[in-house]
């Protein structure tokens, strides 16, 4: 800064720069230029402090092969399953919270001001107590910062001390209290917590949470005479926290007193029409009458009105009325020049695409309408669109092409910001992957799978099952080892149904050694089976344990036998089956035993084969083919022959 000021006073010629023509419009130049070339100096564009950073950030795309930024501090700790991802992110946030707690708890350690200018975030926050010296200006500051708790405390102090609080300030405080329903909101900076919050606590609109007769209403009573603002604040607060009857009564009272309210207040009431009236017809009637009131008062509706009306319509049980009224509302607002937000389209989707109504293709028209557009968040429900749209694509229309269009829209510009939170993102990708694995060929699907999994999305067990089903249908057993290793990483190995499914696919689809892709497969399958065997055995110590069934062990045995070098392991598994046969429910399939006997013939292990036969005899399984095969396959020693005879009797040889 000093330097530039000095430079300004230097002779101009020394500042001269030779610039390539048109290259540096930001530099003035006094160099002798041809007179004809007039350089237009553009007006300086005011940039906000983050504009430059935003421009830089927009150059960084999402790298599907890398974990998310928040996870990449230590490669060793990169989380690989949904639960660990959540734990990791929230632990990081918990660390931040702990630091914050220390800062507040031991504030005396942080009173020094090292930085110039001081960084307020790093200083302990002001603590207001009963003894604090306060005046109206500190209340003003707290309200403008949205510090609910402190603002309320300071207000109470002011009242106690008998300091006059101006009506404007009371009004601001009333708005603050109404907005948050006198409950401390989650601090802004806990972004991870907000990202994962709805996993556990789905914010459904259940019942009234408005605190009757508390601070908000006292504040409201303290404001005399009543202004439109005070009415509006209380109405909106009540509507937001579903004190519907009183909110509506207040609106009527305001109308009787000829108090002019504003559009947003009406929007709040329209939003809760469905809680006031029961049937679709009544709701629609009330909705239109409210709109008429607005028109009478010459209030121009806005996007909030459109969305509120659509929300009201979406609660109609009568889908015909819902559809027809939605189609009346849309052109109306179009004529008013109100551009719908993604939230409006979300409501359209839930109006048109219902389970108990005819299939509707409204999403096609919506996509035609908004293709390639970039959206900014304008309404709280904007973030619901993508998850719902993908849900419609999968469950309502079952249409791959549409799903791809939705996905394209999501990746246009900054639209990804509107995916919502981790919960909605999960729903979105769940539907997307499930749809793709049902409709695409397995190769195409695996390509998408490779991109999305595991860094962007990790399939839940249900989706894993869908994927396995797709693999089974396509007979693409070569993908099973890969999926299995993913399942291990994603912590799905305690799902018995999934384990059985994987085994069944591998057993039913005997690898074809002629295909190059499947040459390694018997080995790999044997490894998978062995891995699974160990995993299950290990899990016996855990709480969530999977227990063996005979079927499962039989499949594992089969797979081990098919692998070329895993006969020893197969023997180990069979010994386990044999020893634990009273604990394991069910028996291995006949085919499994037969394959095991075959393998023992190949490996010249007659005692193993006889053990299998013995097991078959003891468990009442079909023994004749086994015995025959053993008899034909081996040249049995006397001892073995005697055992064979003792097991199945002499008779079978003569058959």
């Amino acid at each position, binding site marked *: *800064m000093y330097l530039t000021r000095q430079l300004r006073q230097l002779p101009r010629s020394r500042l001269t720069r030779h610039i390539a023509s048109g290259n540096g419009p930001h530099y003035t130049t006094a160099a002798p230029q041809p007179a004809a070339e007039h350089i237009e100096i553009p007006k300086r564009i005011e*940039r906000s*402090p*983050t504009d*430059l950073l*935003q421009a830089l*950030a927009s150059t*960084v795309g999402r790298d599907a092969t890398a974990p998310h*930024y928040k996870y990449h501090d230590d490669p060793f700790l990169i989380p690989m399953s949904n639960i660990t991802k959540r734990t990791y992110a929230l632990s990081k946030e918990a660390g931040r919270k702990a630091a914050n707690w220390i800062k507040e708890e031991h504030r005396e350690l942080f009173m020094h001001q090292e930085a*110039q*200018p001081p*960084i*307020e975030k790093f200083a302990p926050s002001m603590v207001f107590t009963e003894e604090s010296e306060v005046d109206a200006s500190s209340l003003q500051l707290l309200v*403008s910062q949205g510090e609910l708790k402190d603002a309320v405390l300071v207000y109470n102090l002011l009242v106690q001390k008998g300091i006059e609080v101006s009506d404007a300030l009371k009004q601001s405080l009333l*708005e603050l209290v109404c*907005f*948050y329903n006198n409950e401390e909101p989650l601090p*802004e*900076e806990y*972004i991870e917590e907000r990202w994962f919050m709805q996993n556990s606590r789905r914010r459904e609109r259940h019942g009234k949470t408005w605190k009757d007769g508390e601070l908000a209403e006292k504040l409201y009573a303290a404001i005399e005479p009543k202004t*439109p603002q005070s009415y*509006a604040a209380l109405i909106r607060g009540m509507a937001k926290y579903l004190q519907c009857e009183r909110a509506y009564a207040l609106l009527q009272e305001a109308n009787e007193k000829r108090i002019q*309210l*504003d559009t*947003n207040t009406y929007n709040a009431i329209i939003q809760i029409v469905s809680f006031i009236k029961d049937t679709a017809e009544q709701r629609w009637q009330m909705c239109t009458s409210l709109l008429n009131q*607005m*028109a009478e008062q*010459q209030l121009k509706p806005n996007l909030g009105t459109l969305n509120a009306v659509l929300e009201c319509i979406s609660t109609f049980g009568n889908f*015909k009325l819902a559809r027809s009224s939605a*189609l009346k*509302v*849309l*052109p*109306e607002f179009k004529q*008013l020049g109100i551009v719908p937000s993604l939230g409006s389209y979300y409501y359209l989707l839930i109006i*048109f695409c219902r389970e108990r109504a*005819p299939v509707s*293709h409204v999403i*096609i*028209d919506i996509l035609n309408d908004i293709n390639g557009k970039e959206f*900014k*968040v304008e309404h*709280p429900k*904007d*973030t619901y669109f993508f998850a719902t749209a993908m849900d419609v694509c999968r469950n309502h*229309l079952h249409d791959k*092409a549409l799903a791809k269009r939705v996905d394209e829209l999501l990746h246009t510009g900054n639209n990804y*910001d*509107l995916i*919502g939170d981790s919960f909605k993102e999960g729903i979105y990708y769940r539907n997307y992957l499930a749809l793709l694995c*049902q409709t695409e060929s*397995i190769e195409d699907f695996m390509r998408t799978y490779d991109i999305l999994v595991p860094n962007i999305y990790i399939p839940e067990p249900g989706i894993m099952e*869908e994927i396995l089903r*797709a693999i089974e*249908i*396509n*007979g693409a057993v070569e993908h099973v080892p890969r999926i299995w290793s993913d399942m291990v990483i994603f912590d799905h190995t305690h799902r018995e149904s999934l384990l059985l499914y994987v085994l069944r696919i591998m057993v039913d689809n005997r690898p*074809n050694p002629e295909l190059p892709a499947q040459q390694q497969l018997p080995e790999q399958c044997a490894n998978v089976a062995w891995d699974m065997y160990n995993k299950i055995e290990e899990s016996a110590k855990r709480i969530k344990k999977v227990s063996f069934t005979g079927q499962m062990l039989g499949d594992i045995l089969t797979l081990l036998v098919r692998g070329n070098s895993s006969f020893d392991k197969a023997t180990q598994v069979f010994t386990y089956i044999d020893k634990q046969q009273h604990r394991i429910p069910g028996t291995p*399939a006949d085919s499994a035993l*037969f394959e095991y006997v075959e393998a023992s013939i190949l490996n010249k292990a007659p005692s193993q084969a006889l053990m299998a036969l013995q097991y078959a005899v003891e468990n009442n399984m079909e023994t004749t083919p086994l015995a025959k095969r053993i008899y034909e396959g081996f040249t049995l020693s006397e001892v073995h022959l005697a055992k064979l005879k003792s097991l199945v009797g002499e008779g079978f040889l003569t058959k």
Partner: protein
Amino acid sequence: MLAFRNTQKLSLRAFLPTAKNVGILSYSSSSQSKDDDGSSSSDDEKRTRKQRKPEEKTGETAAQRLNRLLGTMQTQTDQLTSSDFPRPGDANRKRREALKQDTATSNVITAAKNIASMLGTNENEKKQTESELLAKLLGHSAEGGSDITQGEDKNPSATAADGEKELNLSELIVGMKIDRRQQPEQPEPTRSEYVRRTLASRSKPSGGDFTSRRPQRHVKREAETFSGSVNLYGGEPLGIFTKGDVKLQDSPDILSTWSMLNDRDLKLHAAHPPANYFEQMIQWTDQGKVWRFPIDNEQDMQEEVNVDFSEHIFLEQHLEGWCPNKGPIRHFMELVCVGLSKNPYVTAQEKKEHILWFRDYFEAKKDILKDLMSKEGGVNVKKITT
């Protein structure tokens, strides 16, 4: 033997994908139509029909058929068209399509036969495998290749329902009105029967009767003119705000604090955990933890904003009028000025006060200084007092 059966199954599966592709290829028009707005008749049309039907009771069989149709309605919406109007170029296309289809179907059949003869040992088993194979293949293609899993799951039960696949809505209604021909009283059609019928309907086109295929083929065309699509903005407006005599005024939010909080809330709705370092920096900048761009080392120094740098650096001016022009005090004060001019941590005002403090100090100690200096030689004393 069991192991052997497994291999059979496997090789069947190995054939499946390719065979399925054939199916998709030859019936691409149908799957295409599904990708577009599948249902050919609009929702409303369907609904009215549904309502109309109960009025035209024509007896037991019709009711039964109706029930069956309603049962299958959900899955085969695309069959519900009744567009039998001839269109230009139809005949030609029909011929080509038929030819293509014929070869494809016959390919499929022969392939299936080959497999069956390869695998089967006795005659019965051969037939069984063949029919199973074909059922699977044609089942897929009938569903436009889009619903593999569901088709798979449903198959056993669906065969019965699909048995009368060519029976579409228009036919049904016609049937109810005019004739009560054959009773569809056959016991549940078996799988092989179903396959035969499907095959028959597929190969029919070569004979010229193309009704069963035609509706699907025309779906796309219809979608362009009239489809299940919804004209979002073309309807009759509500007419509350758009009446001629309503004058509307913009209604800005009358609650300033509320709207501020609302904006903040909205921003948080679209806020994500930072995805790269730049976003992290943005977050920190917004929280005021790092320097704001453009970097300016006078950032947030509100007190000094309007003070020129010269007042920080050229401090000798404050010596004028009280400090001797030379001598130890002058020397000392010049050093003080140099030191202060390099100090970025105090304001210009503080620097000035600092210098003036020295003035007052020397003034206060004048007597002592005089004494000291007179001992050393009275030269400088005069100058101090000036």
